[in-house]
C-alpha cells in the first residue's frame, strides 16, 4: 500500500499524517461485532427460547441431584441406613467430599479433632445412639459451636455425612483434644455394617 500513501497537508511539531484509509478488515470486524451484538441481545433478552442463568442453574441442580441420588432414593436417618449406607464405596466417596468441604476445618481431615471434638474415639458429648449423629449435624449443638447444617446440605447429604462420621469411630486417632464427653456403647450391628 505504501506507493499510494498520500501525506495530509498538516504538520504538528514535525509530525505528519498519511491520508491512508482505515483497513478493510478493521471495518469488517467492527461491523461484525456490532451485528453480532444486535443478534445476541435480541435473542437472549427478547426471544421466547432464551433462558436465564438462574434457570440454567436450577436445571443443573436438578439434573445433578438426579444423577447423583437416583440410585439411592430419599434416605431416612434411621439406625440401619446410618450404619450401612457408606459401607458402599460409592456413597463413602460422596460422603467424604461433603465431610472435606464442610467438617474437616473443625474436626480435622481424618476426624482426629481440631476445634471440634475427635470423631474417631468412643467418647461423645451429644450422642447416645447413632441417630443422634444426624440430629447434631442437622440442628447443631453446644451453643453453636457445632453449627446446624439443615439449611446448607440436603437431607441425603446430611445422612451420608452422618454415616461417614459414625464409621470414623473406632480408629482412635490421636488428636489435640483428648477424649470428650462420655464413652458410649458400640453401635449396634446391622447388615452391611462392616468396616
Amino acid at each position, binding site marked *: 500500500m505504501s506507493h499510494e500513501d498520500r501525506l495530509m497537508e498538516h504538520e504538528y511539531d514535525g509530525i505528519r499524517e498519511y491520508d491512508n484509509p*482505515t483497513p478493510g478488515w478493521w471495518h469488517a470486524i467492527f461491523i461484525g461485532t456490532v451485528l453480532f451484538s444486535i443478534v*445476541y441481545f435480541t435473542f437472549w433478552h427478547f426471544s421466547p427460547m432464551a433462558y436465564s*442463568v438462574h434457570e440454567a442453574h436450577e436445571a443443573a441442580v436438578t439434573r445433578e441431584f438426579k444423577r447423583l441420588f437416583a440410585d439411592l432414593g430419599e434416605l431416612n436417618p434411621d439406625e440401619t441406613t446410618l450404619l450401612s449406607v457408606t459401607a458402599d464405596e460409592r456413597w463413602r466417596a460422596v460422603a467424604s*467430599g461433603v465431610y472435606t*468441604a*464442610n467438617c474437616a476445618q*473443625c474436626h480435622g481431615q481424618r476426624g482426629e479433632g481440631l476445634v471440634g471434638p475427635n470423631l474417631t474415639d468412643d467418647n461423645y458429648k451429644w450422642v447416645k445412639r447413632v441417630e443422634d449423629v444426624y440430629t447434631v449435624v442437622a440442628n447443631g449443638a453446644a451453643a*453453636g459451636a457445632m453449627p446446624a447444617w439443615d439449611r446448607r446440605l440436603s437431607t441425603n447429604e446430611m445422612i451420608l455425612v452422618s454415616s461417614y462420621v459414625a464409621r470414623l469411630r473406632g480408629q482412635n486417632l490421636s488428636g489435640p483434644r483428648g477424649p470428650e464427653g462420655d464413652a458410649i456403647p458400640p453401635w449396634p450391628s446391622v447388615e452391611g455394617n462392616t468396616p
Partner: protein
Amino acid sequence: MSEPGSTDRGLADGAGQAGTVEAFVYDDAIVRKFMLATIVWGLVATLVGLILAVQLALPALNLGLPWLTFGRLRPLHTNAAIFAFAGNAIFAAIYYSTQRLCKARMFSDLLSTLHFWGWQLIIVAAALTLPLGITQSKEYAELEWPIDLAIAVVWVGFFGVNFFGTLARRRERHMYVALWFYIATIVTVALLHVFNNLWVPVGVMHWIKSGEMPSAELLLKSYPVYAGVQDAFMQWWYGHNAVAFFLTTPFLGLMYYFMPKAANRPVFSYRLSIVHFWSLVFIYIWAGPHHLHYTALPAWASSLGMLFSLMLWMPSWGGGINGLLTLRGAWNKVTTDPVLKFFVVGITFYMMATFEGPMLSIKSVNALSHYTDWTIAHVHSGALGWNGFMTFGMIYWLAPRLFRAELWSKRLATAHFWTGTVGILLYVISMYTAGITQGLMWRAFDETGRLAYPDFAETVARLMPFYWIRVAGGLLFIAGFVMMAVNVLMTWKARPAVYEDAVQHAPRLTRDYQDEPPPPPRLTNVIAAGHAIDRFMQGSWHRRWERLPLRFTVWVVIAVVVASLFEILPTFLIRSNVPTIASVRPYTPLELAGRDIYVAEGCYNCHSQMIRPIFAETKRYGEYSKPGEFVYDRPFQWGSRRIGPDLARVGGKQSHLWHLLHFENPQQLVPQSVMPRYPWLLEHEIDFEGIQARVDAMAMLGVPYGEAVRRAPAMAREQAAHIASELVQQGGPEGMETKKVIALIAYLQRLGTDISRDPEEGATP
C-alpha cells in the same frame, strides 16, 4: 466556510492582531519534575507489588504488623501503580507534548507547580492512609473522602484549567490527535471520580449534629450514597473506565506524539485516528458491567457489558495498528533504537490485552476466569507491558532532550528492554497458568458427582510454584526499572550547568480563519442525501472540530455521558432490578462496626461475597447471592478475587471459637492457608461509643434503623457480651467482649443468613 459558534470563539482564536509573531519558551522544568516522580513512584509501586507477590507464597512476610498485611498493602500497590507511576508518566507526556503541539508555554507556571506538588501530596497521603486501614474499599477508589476532594481540586482546578488554558492560548490552529485523547482523559476521569465518590462523611455528620469532636478514625470515615447492586455498578463503571481513561486514552495520546517523533515517520492514517478515537470514547463507557457477570447485577446490564466489550475490540486495535504501522519503512530502526523497541513491545501488549479483554468479557469465559489470577495476568500485561513500556520508551526519548545530554548508556537501555520483557513474560505466563488452574479446580467434579477439590486450601496450595515464578518475573521487571533509574541519573549528571531553553517563534492565531473548502463531490447521479453522506464520510467536518476545542470537548462529554446514562438510569430507577427480600434486615450496631473492620482490613482483596448461579459454585458455597441481600451494604463487598474462599454465606458455618482461633493464626486450623495472622484483633478494643455515629450516618442514608438510632452503643455491648459468653461456652478465652474480633465475628456470623430466616422472626435493630 467558517462560522465559528460564539462559544467557541474565545478558545479557537486568541484575540489580537492578525498573525503577530510572538516569542516564547517551553517549560521543560515541570516535565523533568514529573519524569523524576514517575521513576521514584514507579519503583515504590513495583516494590510494594513484589512484597505482595512474596506474601502470597510466604504469608508471614507481613512480620506480624497490621500495616503490612496483604489486605492493606494491595490497595497501596494498585493506587501507586495507577495514580503515582502511570499518573506522573502521563503528566510528563502531556506537559511536554501539549506545549509543542499548541506552540505555547503551559497556561500558568503556578498551576503547573500546584498540580505537581498537589499530586505528590495526594500520593503521600495515600501511602500513609491505606496501610492504616483508612479506606473506602472500592477498588482504585480506596482513598477516603478528604483525599477524594483533593484529587478533584488538583485534577480539575489545577491540571484541567492549566491544560484547557493552554489550548485557549495555542498558536497552532488545529489540534493533533494526541490532544483529543488528552481532552477525553481529563473530562472523563473528572466525571468518573466525582460520581463514584459520592459519600456521607460519618464523623463530620456526627460532629455537626452533636457538636462532639469524633475520633480521627471516624472523622476520615465515609459511607457511599449507593448501596449493594447500585454501588457495585457505579464502582465498576468507574473501575473499568479508570482503565479506559487513565491507562488507555492518555497513553494513546502519548503514543501518537512520541512514536512518530522517535521513528521520525508520519502516522499511518489520519482517518483511522478519527474513527478509532470516537468509537473508543463512546463504546468504552458501556463495558463496565463485564466485571460483574453472573453476579446479582441485572442480566441486561451484564449482556450490555459483554457486547460493548466485544465491539470495543476494533476501536482499541485502531490505536495499536496506527502505532505499529507508523513504523512501516522504519522497522530497521527498531533493531538499534531502544526507544522504538519499548514502543513496539508496549503496543503489542496493548493489542494483546485489548484482545484478551473482550474475550474475558464473554460470559462463559468469564465464568472460568473471574476471581482467579487470570485477571491478574490480564491487568499486568496491560500495566507492565503497555503502561510500563510506553513510559520507559518515553523516558529514554525524553531524558537526553530534557537534560540536554546524550543518554548515558544505550546498551543499558537495551538490557533494560530485554530484562523487562522476560520479566513480564514470566509474570503473565505464570499467572495465566495459575488462573486457569485454579478456575478449573474450582469447577471440577469427579465421577461420583462431588467437587473434585472440596477443600479450598488445596486449590491455593497448587498455585505456589506459579507464585514463585511470578516473584522471579517481578524481580526482573524491577531490575530493569533500576537500570533505567541509573541511566537517567547518569544522564542527568552530564547536564549543562544551566539549561538554555530555546526561544520559539510562532504567530498568534487570527480570528479571520477560513476553513479549507469542503472536498469536491466524489459521486455523480445521486440525490442530495447521498452527497451529504459522502461529505460526512470524507470528514472535513471533523477537521473543523479540530480547531474548536470547546465544541470538541462538549462532544466528548456528550458521548461519555449519554453512554453512561443509558446504563445508570435503569439500574437506579427500575425496581425489579433489585427485588426486595422481606427477611433482609439492617446490620445490628455491632455487626456494622464489625463490617467496618472487615472493610478497613481490606478483606475484600482476597475474599469475595458473591456466589454466582453456577453449579460448582453453589455446591461449594451454598445458595447463590440475590440482589435483595445487599440493600444495606455500603460499600458493597463483592470483591474481585478469591485468594481465599467466598464469604457470602459464611454466617453460621463455623463456630465463634473457630473464627477466633483462625484470626489468631489461620495456619493452626488450615495448614495450607496463605491468610496472614490477625492477633491484634484479639487485643484492640471496640470503640463502642463511636458506633452511634456509624448508625446515624446509615440512618441518614435511608437505612431503616429502629431503637439503634438512640442506643447503638448499648445494643452493641449487649450483643458483644452475648457472643463472648457463647465463645466461652465453646471453650474459648474469657474477656473478649470488648475486643474487635467480637464485632468482626458478629458480622461474619450474620453474612448470608438473612435469606433463610422467617420474615416475621427478629426485629429491625
